[in-house]
């Protein structure tokens, strides 16, 4: 069994826009950065057969998810000349309109930042053991499926 050092990815509840602004501001000192590519996943108030999604409640297989995030991170640094990368994912309840995923990739050149960010997002959706329970405004729920 290998133990890998993992960065803290999971946050309790929504990712706040203020936190995102602060994260961006911290990169002013990294003056070899030319481009940041950011992806934000926001909870939609989807209408599912007449029932509105009010929130998503996220759970994860935490140990495996953290190892997966670590692997995705290492692969991105191996595949693209990146300067830094941050991933935050919500656990627990996130209301519609709030942000549940924040992927932040910085590089010297824009194409590296943009393409790495896209690849990271796709891999998170496909490979990380996280589940979203879509909670309806009227109190029922269904399990989310990713497209």
């Amino acid at each position, binding site marked *: 069994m290998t133990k890998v050092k993992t960065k803290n990815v999971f946050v309790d509840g929504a990712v706040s826009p203020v936190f995102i602004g602060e994260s961006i501001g911290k990169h002013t000192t990294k003056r070899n950065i030319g481009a940041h590519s950011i992806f934000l996943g926001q909870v939609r108030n989807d209408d599912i057969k007449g029932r509105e999604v009010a929130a998503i409640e996220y759970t994860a*297989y935490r140990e*495996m998810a953290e190892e997966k995030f670590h692997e995705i991170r290492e692969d991105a640094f191996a595949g693209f000349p990146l300067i830094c990368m941050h991933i935050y994912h919500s656990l627990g309840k996130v209301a519609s309109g709030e942000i*549940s995923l924040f992927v932040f990739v910085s590089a010297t050149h824009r194409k590296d930042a943009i393409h790495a960010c896209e690849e990271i997002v796709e891999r998170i959706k496909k490979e990380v053991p996280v589940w979203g329970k879509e909670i309806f405004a009227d109190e029922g729920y269904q399990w989310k499926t990713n497209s």
Partner: protein
Amino acid sequence: MRVNVLVFGQIAEITGSVSLEMKDTKDTNELVQRLITDYPKLKSIEYSLAVNRNIVRENTKLKDQDTVALLPPFSGG
């Protein structure tokens, strides 16, 4: 030997618990068969299996203290 079984999402609703323990299961096929016997609803559920946090696609031998997880389709992000 004992194997830890973790279940998530809609599977935990079927088993009524997020964590089970199983004795003397030689491989994942046997483990899944025994779970289906206990929880017949599992038959109609889509999931993948992880042994010690690695996805396995084929029948896999199990040893004492292994952790097997039943993972419904991921829906993070």
